[in-house]
């Protein structure tokens, strides 16, 4: 027994010693940090910015970043290391990276991946108000002010949104080959009910084609804006009283779900839609007739080019500016950044300097792409080693155009942005801290019912009441009440 006790105390001593060593290491780091951030003179050693962003890791990232660093060292005396994390892993890995204090300066965040608002509230990002005034003047001048306004959390900016399409608009996309083959008329299509004759025609004539392609994230369009994406709390777009309702209890949603179930039973929807993660194999094979997507100007060109066959779209909703669309792509500065000033200078340069922005986007001229004229570029074979998602990396309107883009592409974007209508709850961000317990429970109910209801897999006559009851039991009413209180306060503060 005494032997056991002794070895235990020995282990305890080891543990303490180890903890001491660890904390000593931490202390050392902090010293280095403070000496690094204190200096910003140009004769100083350049600082290295660590930049986490989303997308499939590319082979030539380091090579391109070496070039980028040469350029930025000259301009702002900073070098850049980019770390890419693949689409599916981004949220989870960043959660861990941030929680464990991994060194980083700049990171991608958005309403969809690595949630911007929640993480801003948790303290993952640095508040940028002062930095923006001091080093971000260029950003303020170039980016549509609606972006900076719409990405404020509790009145402060925590990130720099990418300047791109501002509203979000749903469209029906059609596989034009099939439309032409059967001479179908898509001009009168708009509502969910209006597509039925088209689906029916395709189902009869092309039994091997999926008439209505969708994955498990599909949600029928209803004219509401969600408080939190894909949770059943929403405000009607033409609201006057700013009342938050359970979307499942609205007549519009009930009608839409009934229609979806009718389509599902008629075989217009793939039987496994509710568990399908992606429709990309359908897109590759071309064995689909229509689906719903979010659009931007000239999107048809982009889709057609990427699928290799013509795709055309018609609107399924108005163009609405919502939090989700405004917060679709943001670069934030990490709360633990050692060089927040430099990071801000870099973001400013990235959003205003076409040379830097295009280098980050398309790689090295002559290696990854070549210029066709002063606006258009063409990818070289090496380009596939550096194929970046343009939307995520900063101001889109500085980018070179693809060979078949019209010269006025970015003017069309600006026009599209100007025409978008504001959602009534634009820039209201719900703080769910007080109802965190209920949120976790509600989330589970959502996972249970959402996909099968939305894709029409189950009959809303029986399942909708079940889902509504389950949400209530999980505490949705309490969450809605809390959200309503916050929304009322926000409404009063903003004179709506």
């Amino acid at each position: 027994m005494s032997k056991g006790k002794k070895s235990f105390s020995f282990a305890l001593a080891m543990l303490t010693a180890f903890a001491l060593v660890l904390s000593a290491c931490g202390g050392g780091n902090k010293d280095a940090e403070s000496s690094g951030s204190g200096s910003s003179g140009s004769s100083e050693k350049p600082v290295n910015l660590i930049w986490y962003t989303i997308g499939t890791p590319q082979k030539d990232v380091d090579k391109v970043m070496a070039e980028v660093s040469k350029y930025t060292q000259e301009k702002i005396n900073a070098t850049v290391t980019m770390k890419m994390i693949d689409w599916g892993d981004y949220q989870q890995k960043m959660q861990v990276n941030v929680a464990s204090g991994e060194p980083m300066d700049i990171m991608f965040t958005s309403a969809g991946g690595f949630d911007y608002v929640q993480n801003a509230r948790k303290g993952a990002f640095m508040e940028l108000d002062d930095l923006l005034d001091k080093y971000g003047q260029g950003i303020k001048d170039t980016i549509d002010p609606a972006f900076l306004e719409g990405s404020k959390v509790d009145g402060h900016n925590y990130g720099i949104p990418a300047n791109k399409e501002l509203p979000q608009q749903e469209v029906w996309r059609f596989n034009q080959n099939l439309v032409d083959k059967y001479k179908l008329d898509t001009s009168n299509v708009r509502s969910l009910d209006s597509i039925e004759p088209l689906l029916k025609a395709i189902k009869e004539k092309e039994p091997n084609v999926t008439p209505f392609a969708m994955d498990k994230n599909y949600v029928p369009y209803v004219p509401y804006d969600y408080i939190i994406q894909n949770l059943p709390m929403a405000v009607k777009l033409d609201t006057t009283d700013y009342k938050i309702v359970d979307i499942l209890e609205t007549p519009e949603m009930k009608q839409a779900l009934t229609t979806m179930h009718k389509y599902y039973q008629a075989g217009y929807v793939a039987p496994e839609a509710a568990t399908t993660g992606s429709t990309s194999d359908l897109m590759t094979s071309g064995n689909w007739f229509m689906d719903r997507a979010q659009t931007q100007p000239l999107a048809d060109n982009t889709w057609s080019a990427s699928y290799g066959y013509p795709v055309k779209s018609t609107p399924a909703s108005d163009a609405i500016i919502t939090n989700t669309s405004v917060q679709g792509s943001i670069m934030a500065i990490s709360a633990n950044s050692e060089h927040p000033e430099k990071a801000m200078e870099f973001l400013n340069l990235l959003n205003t300097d076409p040379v830097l922005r295009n280098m980050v986007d398309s790689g090295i001229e002559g290696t990854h792409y070549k210029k066709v004229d002063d606006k258009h570029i063409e990818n070289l074979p090496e380009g596939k080693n550096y194929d970046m998602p343009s939307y995520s990396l900063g101001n889109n309107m500085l980018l070179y155009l693809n060979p078949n883009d019209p010269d006025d592409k970015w003017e069309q974007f600006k026009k599209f942005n100007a025409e978008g209508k504001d959602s009534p709850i634009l820039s209201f961000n719900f703080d769910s801290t007080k109802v965190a317990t209920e949120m976790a429970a509600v989330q589970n109910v959502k996972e249970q019912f959402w996909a099968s209801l939305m894709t029409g897999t189950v009959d809303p006559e029986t399942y909708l009441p079940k889902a509504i009851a389950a949400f209530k039991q999980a505490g949705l009413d309490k969450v809605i009440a809390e959200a309503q209180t916050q929304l009322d306060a926000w409404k009063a503060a903003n004179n709506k």
Partner: protein
Amino acid sequence: MAAFFKNLIRNKVMLFMVLPGAIWFFFFSYLPLVGTIVAFKQYRFNREGFWASISKSEWVGWDNFKFLFSTNDAYTITRNTLLYNLAFIILGLILSVAMAVLLSELVGKTMAKIYQTGMFLPYFLSWVIVGYFAFSFLSMDRGMINQILGWFGAEPVQWYSDPKYWPYILVFVSLWKSVGYNSVVYLASIMGIDKSLYEAAMIDGASKWQQIKNITIPMLSPIIIIMTLLAVGRIFYADFGLFYQVPRDSGTLYSVTNVIDTYVYRGLKTTGEIGMSTAAGLYQSVVGFVLVIVSNFVVRKIDKDSALF
């Protein structure tokens, strides 16, 4: 202290041999124990790093545990977790031991090796792949089972939206994957049984069945008890891959596929509340720990030599 060092020196070779394992356990099992503190905090990031984040986060007492018990989901997931694991332990034990005995009795050793390898193989497959195997059988429009049903003129079954089949499917898939591995463990200890026991039994005219019943099974019982105790300790841990990948995360099946691990994952993957995930993990560990202690206590009462400690 002197006795401690003397002891250390005397056993230095043995201690040196366990050193890698001990170091591994220290870093990956004991050191992270400090992190359970997060279960009682509202975790907020701090720019000074991980330790500062932990120490500066606000204490919230038991708040993080509430979500586990806030709905009657708690009942469903606890029931599913326990009952499935019980089924896996009991059926797994019976099947693995039976397979091991059968394999050991096979005369053709080449065939025995082939069977053994064939049964062992699924153990190495990832759940994602097993999930797709299952899908190729159960897919609504292209699955093998529905096609076969079609030949007999039966209606196709919507496997992924009908919960009533899933308890059987999950148990079957789980056993298919694990039995091969466990039977090898039992086979190894059967091989270690003194052959003279069987010779003596044969001279006394014992049949094969009597030999198995009176020699093999009793000789196996220590390893059976250890394996079972270890499994009982993990009875509160569901195999995430099995319950998430194989039913393809289909919402309509949750009443029979939702277990603690998937519940926690779904609830927290979007909210990202680290405190709550830690709380759930701690709850699982504590219950698992209690179960091991209790079952070991029970084993001790029955047969002192077979107990783990």
